[in-house]
């Protein structure tokens, strides 16, 4: 722990990188998984393609995806995009199912009532279906966020930034305190992000608590 305070500037620097590399993929992945999940909740064909594909993508180890990405999209191995693209893929793979399940669970009489009141499809989705799907969606988002925060560290094995750099440097210089500092940073960041999403979910869905 003392390592963190004695090297605060460095610690803060890797924290910023780590945060950026984990939050950006979650945001992009989340936004992309909404239309994909909606598609999967509406069409059995889309489901039959998207769900197995998501499972297969999830079995590719993160380190492998991180080393393959630069060759596939033609950038240098030390580009941050090599962490952002794989983690976005993992986020989508995880979230498509959450979003699809959540949207499928919206009660039929509720959507029928919205239709009867003259809601157009887009407005109904944004103001009725999606809000009702939020609790399950946010549960999925919490899992994706925590696993992303933990996976960013893998990028350091090929030389990218984040807390993982403290792991590799600590390993090379035989300095367990440095590795431990990175471990603490990762866990604290994961717990904070998880708690933030939990609170956000409660604030956004006040009706879920009503009547209890």
């Amino acid at each position, binding site marked *: 722990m003392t390592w963190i305070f004695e090297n605060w500037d460095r610690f803060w620097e890797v924290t910023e990188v780590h945060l950026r590399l984990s939050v950006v993929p979650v945001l992009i992945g989340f936004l992309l998984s909404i239309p994909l999940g909606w598609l999967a909740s509406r069409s059995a064909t889309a489901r039959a393609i998207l769900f197995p594909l998501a499972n297969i993508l999830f*079995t*590719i*180890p993160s*380190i*492998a995806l991180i080393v393959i990405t630069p060759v596939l999209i033609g950038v240098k191995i030390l580009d941050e995009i090599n962490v952002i693209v794989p983690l976005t893929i993992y986020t989508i793979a995880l979230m498509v199912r959450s979003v699809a399940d959540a949207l499928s669970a919206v009660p039929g009489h509720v959507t029928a009532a919205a239709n009867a009141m003259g809601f157009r499809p887009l407005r109904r989705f944004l103001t009725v279906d999606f809000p009702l799907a939020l609790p399950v969606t946010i549960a999925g988002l919490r899992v994706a966020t925590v696993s992303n925060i933990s996976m960013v560290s893998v990028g350091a094995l090929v030389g990218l930034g984040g807390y993982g750099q403290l*792991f590799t440097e600590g390993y090379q210089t035989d300095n367990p305190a440095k590795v431990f500092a990175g471990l603490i940073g*990762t866990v604290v960041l994961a717990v904070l992000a998880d708690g933030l999403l939990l609170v956000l979910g409660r604030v956004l869905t006040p009706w879920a608590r009503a009547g209890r």
Partner: protein
Amino acid sequence: MGGWLFDPAHWSGPTGIPVRLLEHLGYTLMTLLIAAVIAIPLGAFVGHTGKGGFVVVGLSNALRALPTTAVLILVVLWAGLGDFPVYVALVLLAIPPIMAGAYAGIRAVDPVTVDAARGVGMRESGVLLKVEIPNALPLIYGGFRGAALQVVATATIAAYTGAGGLGRLVFDGLALQEFGQMLAGAVLVALLAVLVDLGFAGLQRLTVSPGLRPVGTGGKT
């Protein structure tokens, strides 16, 4: 791109692909065995007694955030190179999903069934071993197979500290700037993950009572 993978020279010898595959499978199966021996009794016991559930859930979530790379490196720095750090890191990774599956499985068993078991005079050990665990098996397998996928994928990291397994192809390929070797490692790990999952799916079919299969997907009607 598949040139490296299909070169016969890479399929023999002590550092050939078959050896790496077996090492990887060995890490995976041994890890899952150790983790299951620890996590299933713990999860089942807490699920059975209903006490300490929040500890199981909290512990699972906290362990989930633990970066495996850091655990691996810390244990290597502390205990030296070898297979021991690999097992510590991978077992810690596998415990949360297995324990959560066992706990959730036992909790989800219909209380009426458990009551009936007590009613016919079963002892608590019988209720747990002959009624709750067999009925919880689908969810126990769910947690176990999730853990298996994670362990196969993450065992790749072991090669960073010089251990064997398919990760060797990824890290050696990286060091030599041999993209074909890295790609071969990645593809083989994904393939192994699918095969391991299929194997456990088969085991699940053989060991779970046909009465517990989801309606409409199993059994002859």
